[in-house]
């Protein structure tokens, strides 16, 4: 029999206002096992905790029930208290009489009656509690960063600086991500390449960082501190360690008509290519979809001109398996496809472009060397219309775009408009907006400058239709403030497309058992207090994979994720949650039902010798739970047909005792 102490908290008037706390303490005194019962104003205060500690010693308590706020609030506090008084912390149970009682019920008799029942259930549970000891697991001191954009690069650099080795896995042939494609950055207008490329070089030169470019994560196993990840290094048909990046092969490749994805298809590249001049690693890659040698076995020109002998047409994909203590997801974003918004004629005219295409068109390293011209005829545009919120803030039932605000479009559109007016004062620039959202340091000032100093026409309203007629784009729009329907003959229309998580995020989340929201953004462990951690232990989030964000926000989140990783990797060992499944080997019949439902692969089967009553030896197949891998969901306990599987801390008999106490 347990010796249980009951401690009823007033929480000032939060509980005592609707619950007669004395009556609760009094009523619970008569429950089986209870040897001490009291109430106090603030149980979580130092004085309150001392009451608990003293009672544990004085009454030789073996179990504690605290009737107070939610266990999500102070369970940890009271467990610590118990442990300081020498009691196993898992002998403490909380009856939630604040959030789930005093705050939701109005009158004292009702509140008191329910509080007593909740206390009774907690007492019934503690009667069946058993001391639990957390296990320990080793921490592998190496981190994996998935995604090599600015988020991934920054996270990797910060972790590497703390002295831990990091691998960056990037699916493209170079790191750099979206930021490498941008021209200038708001609101300071520094050039994106000038601030990004030194970081890319730093990453390449840092001895703690290994860049696995043109690679993808294929399989993830293990758990916090000890993940095992399989990475597919795709064949690039060029020996990375030998290639000097001289570009001779690119120059000689006869396959000249490959759409250049770095410039969003606005110009062409060769079948063997280096994405851009500052690529890291600066190594050529052969595109197997276009290379004649790989497709038909005819050509081989690049191998002939490569003096280093780096070309290898026989290269195969390579699988690398590595162990990591922590994983950072930095898979970033993409602009959405504009196919469903053809009222803006994106698929009907070359001169209707997306904002990212506009970035490339104004970038000195872009397809036009930075000269802003119409893609259709190379002429200088005189009237440019920018349309904001294309696909953002769409209602779900409209089934076209995204429900959320993409956050970055207001600012980059202001930047595009301002830069256009600055460089080409002869252009008329219209921006159609629903709301201009500029919360950020110097953001609104920036937008106002576009209007006041650069004369950008901001029109409150939306564009309804863009009609390509001859070489003009007829834009029909509303100006809600003047109450007019506007008809503008534009030369160029720029659509601020909504952004969405990269398509690789969803399968990755499944591999990591990390949760996502309905928009495929990764979910944080807590939206306010744990913004860079995934609810899955050991998985951290960096950048736009968690939600739309601009560069400064991405960089600060990247740093925050790195500091969380470092905090994990400096530990040699981790304590594990003791509330894990446990199989009673004598009852287990080896059916594998539990193994099949376990989402973590924590259950394995072993053949074990059993000594039978007649002293004979029998070998039986029984389930074994790896407590370091088990997360304690309990799916297996219900699947088990023989009742062998149970969950520590939430044993079947404990829950049944609670049910009985409530239904008494």
């Amino acid at each position, binding site marked *: 029999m347990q010796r249980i102490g009951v401690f009823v908290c007033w929480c000032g008037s939060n509980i005592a206002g609707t619950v007669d706390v004395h009556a609760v303490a009094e009523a619970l005194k008569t429950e089986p096992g209870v040897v001490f019962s009291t109430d106090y104003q603030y149980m979580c205060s130092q004085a309150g905790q001392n009451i608990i500690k003293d009672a544990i010693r004085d009454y030789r308590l073996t179990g504690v029930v605290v009737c107070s706020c*939610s266990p999500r609030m102070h369970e940890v506090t009271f467990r610590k208290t118990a442990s300081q008084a020498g009691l196993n912390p898992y002998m403490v149970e909380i009856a*939630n009489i604040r959030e789930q009682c005093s*705050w*939701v019920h109005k009158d004292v008799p009702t509140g008191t*009656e329910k509080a007593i029942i909740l206390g009774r259930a907690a007492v019934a549970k503690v009667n069946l509690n058993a001391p639990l000891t957390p296990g320990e697991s080793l921490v592998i001191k190496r981190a994996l960063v998935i995604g090599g954009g600015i988020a991934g690069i920054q996270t990797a650099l910060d972790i590497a600086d703390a002295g831990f080795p990091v691998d960056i896995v990037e699916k493209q042939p170079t790191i750099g991500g979206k930021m490498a494609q941008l021209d200038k950055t708001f609101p300071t207008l520094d050039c994106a390449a000038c601030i990004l490329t030194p970081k890319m070089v730093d990453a390449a030169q840092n001895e703690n960082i290994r860049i696995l470019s043109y690679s993808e994560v294929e399989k993830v196993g293990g758990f916090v501190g000890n993940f095992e990840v399989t990475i597919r290094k795709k064949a690039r048909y060029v020996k990375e360690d030998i290639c000097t990046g001289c570009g001779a092969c690119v120059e000689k490749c006869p396959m000249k008509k490959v759409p250049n994805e770095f410039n969003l298809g606005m110009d062409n590249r060769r079948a063997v290519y280096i994405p851009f001049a500052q690529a890291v690693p600066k190594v050529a890659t052969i595109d197997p979809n276009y290379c004649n040698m790989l497709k038909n076995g005819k050509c081989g020109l690049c191998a002939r001109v490569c003096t280093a002998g780096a070309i290898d047409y026989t290269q195969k994909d390579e699988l690398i398996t590595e162990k990591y203590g922590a994983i950072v997801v930095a898979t970033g974003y993409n602009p959405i496809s504009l196919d469903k918004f053809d009222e803006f004629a994106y698929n009907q005219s070359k001169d209707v472009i997306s904002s990212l295409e506009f970035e490339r068109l104004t970038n000195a390293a872009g397809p036009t060397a930075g000269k802003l011209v119409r893609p259709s005829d190379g002429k200088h545009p005189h009237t440019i219309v920018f349309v904001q919120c294309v696909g953002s803030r769409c209602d779900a039932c409209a089934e076209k775009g995204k429900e959320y605000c993409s956050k970055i479009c207001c600012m980059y559109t202001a930047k595009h408009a301002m830069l256009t007016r600055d460089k080409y004062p002869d252009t008329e620039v219209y921006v159609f907006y629903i709301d201009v959202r500029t919360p950020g340091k110097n953001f609104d000032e920036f937008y106002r400058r576009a209007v006041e100093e650069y004369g950008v026409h901001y029109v409150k309203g939306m564009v309804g239709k863009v009609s390509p007629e001859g070489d003009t784009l007829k834009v029909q729009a509303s100006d809600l403030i003047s109450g007019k329907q506007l008809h503008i003959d534009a030369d160029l229309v720029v659509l601020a497309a909504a952004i969405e998580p990269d398509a690789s995020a969803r399968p990755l989340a499944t591999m990591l058992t990390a949760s996502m929201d309905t928009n495929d953004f990764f979910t944080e462990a807590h939206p306010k207090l744990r913004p860079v951690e995934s609810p899955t232990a050991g998985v951290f989030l960096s950048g736009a994979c968690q939600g739309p964000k601009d560069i400064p926000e991405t960089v600060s989140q990247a740093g925050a994720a790195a500091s969380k990783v470092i905090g994990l990797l400096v530990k040699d060992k981790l304590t594990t949650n003791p509330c894990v499944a446990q199989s009673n080997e004598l009852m287990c019949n080896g059916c594998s039902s539990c193994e099949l439902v376990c989402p973590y692969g924590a259950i394995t089967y072993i053949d074990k010798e059993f000594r039978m009553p007649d002293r004979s030896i029998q070998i039986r197949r029984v389930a074994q739970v790896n407590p370091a891998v088990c997360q304690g*969901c*309990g799916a297996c306990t219900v699947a088990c047909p023989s009742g062998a599987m149970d969950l520590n801390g939430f044993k079947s008999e404990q829950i049944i005792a609670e049910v009985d106490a*409530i239904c008494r």
Partner: protein
Amino acid sequence: MPVNGYKPLIVAFCCNWCSYAGADLAGNNRLNYPADVKIIRVPCSCRVNPMFVLRAFQRGADGVIICGCHPGDCHYTSGNYFTRRRMALLFSMLDYLGIERERTRVEWVSAAEGAKFAATMNDFAETVASLGENKRLEDLRCKK
């Protein structure tokens, strides 16, 4: 809302990560629901053994509700899918035994849905109260 002054006994199993937190949020926002609802915390809705539901009815509960994370949002990835299937089977069996479908329910309540939690409990308590006392499965030997 008691019907004819009758107050039902309702057992609610709530998963620790979503629904229990949703119930806490209902409390934080002071959203009322009947005190007839008593919550039992489980790590995941998939920890709820059909046996627990049967036990509750045997001991005189008038309604049992199981709340978990929304499909796809389970903290343990897939636990709530197990719950959905298991309970669909159990409830149809209970229906066969004469425990009306309305006395059993599975609901998805996220940690952010305090209002939904309260609304769900109000609705469920009202429905169960309108059915009156559960006599079918109650084991009178359990009554003192």
